[in-house]
């Protein structure tokens, strides 16, 4: 085991947060090919009780997922997410950056209190840039903490992302004058037109 590999291992092990390649490189010396070292280290740990994982562009040691059942005893029971919160999280993850209005139009209901704030409190979503449209609404995006929590290397690794894209379900297609969820006015207007 080379001194550099030892140091890399120790750094990743000691850090309370995942570390990105640049930080590691700064420490190891810029002439270091960190990518190769990380790959070596990941390979060494692949079958062990601890794995070296790559989440959100950063590296960290984690217990192997297949040991979940045996380790869970210690873990505090996590609150179950409500359906509304889960749906909202999925919509933000797959449609980001997405405004609250867009979330509501996809779900067909107004967003109740205790949805976005719970996701923010969990550290999974945060406000992004404002959309440059009338009213300049705030958009919502996911965080690195989201990738870390769900063990995703990047947003490209979201489950079924390619299928969803291919089927056009992630298109920002404006649904016919949004059928519900803020679309209250629309059917009424259409009725008038008809009458």
């Amino acid at each position, binding site marked *: 085991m080379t001194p550099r590999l030892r140091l890399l291992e120790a750094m990743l092990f*000691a850090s309370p947060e995942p570390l990105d390649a640049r930080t590691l490189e700064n420490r190891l010396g810029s002439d270091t090919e960190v990518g190769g070292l990380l790959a070596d280290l990941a390979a060494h740990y692949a079958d062990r009780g601890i794995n070296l994982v790559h989440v959100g562009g950063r590296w960290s040691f984690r217990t192997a997922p297949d040991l979940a059942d045996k380790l869970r005893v210690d873990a505090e029971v996590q609150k179950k997410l409500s359906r509304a919160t889960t749906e909202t999280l999925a919509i933000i993850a797959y449609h980001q950056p997405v405004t609250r209005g867009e979330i509501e139009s996809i*779900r067909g209901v107004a967003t109740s209190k205790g949805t976005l704030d719970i996701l923010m409190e969990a550290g999974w979503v945060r406000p992004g840039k404002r959309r440059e449209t009338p009213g300049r609404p705030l958009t919502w995006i996911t965080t690195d903490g989201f990738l870390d929590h769900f063990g995703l290397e990047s947003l490209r690794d979201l489950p079924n992302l390619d299928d969803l894209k291919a089927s056009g*379900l992630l298109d920002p297609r404006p649904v*016919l004058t949004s*059928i519900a*969820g803020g679309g209250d006015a629309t059917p009424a207007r259409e009725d008038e037109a008809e009458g």
Partner: protein
Amino acid sequence: MDDAIAEAPTEGTLVLDLDGFEGPIDVLLTLARDQKVDLTRISILQLTDQYLAFVAEARRIRLELAADYLVMAAWLAYLKSRLLLPEKDEEEPSGEDMAQALAFQLLRLEAMQAAGAKLLDRPRLGRDVFARGAPEGIQIVTKSIFDLSLYDLLKSYTEHKRREEFDTWRIQPTELYSMEDALEHLSEMLGRLPDWTSLASFVPGAGGDSLMSRSALAAHFVASLELTKAGRLELKQDGVFSPIYLRRVRSS
């Protein structure tokens, strides 16, 4: 909203539990799933009938439906009429377009529900996988680079100097004869007034052009009005710009 709670109906057979629904689109999605066909081939017409029946049933058992549910019902009733009646050639989206848009919404919501479930099924940090329990931490030694140009430094000094130059500028209190003083003065003199006496004779330094004497005259004039109002003094003036006389009110 899913707040419409299914209160146990006293009579009737069907129990509608709205608690489990996340809004009208969600209800439609559930009804569509019950049709057990591919969502892309769902019969929107059939779905519409089912939803309208659902809403009718909810109303029959006097279930309070949130506005969204009724709006959706109205929209679907309209859609149904558009689908059944021959289409007029208009700019408006056709019934077919509207049905397709609804189908898209259903598909999209279903996809997001499935995606959410898939996400939650992943090995999750703190539940299935664990970070190191007692990380020693990496000591991050930060070295601060201070960003300040000579210009910033000089500008700061000159701004300070400029402020300093005018910092001590104070407005001198103006010397004026106050009305309080005039009141006191007049009240004191009142007792000694035999008869009509000109106002000017009370004013110290009267006739002078200084700010002080002009303000004294003004103050005494106002004070005399004040005392007249209080019923202690009488005033008279023979003509415009002629001298003002005053005397004490005689107690009758």
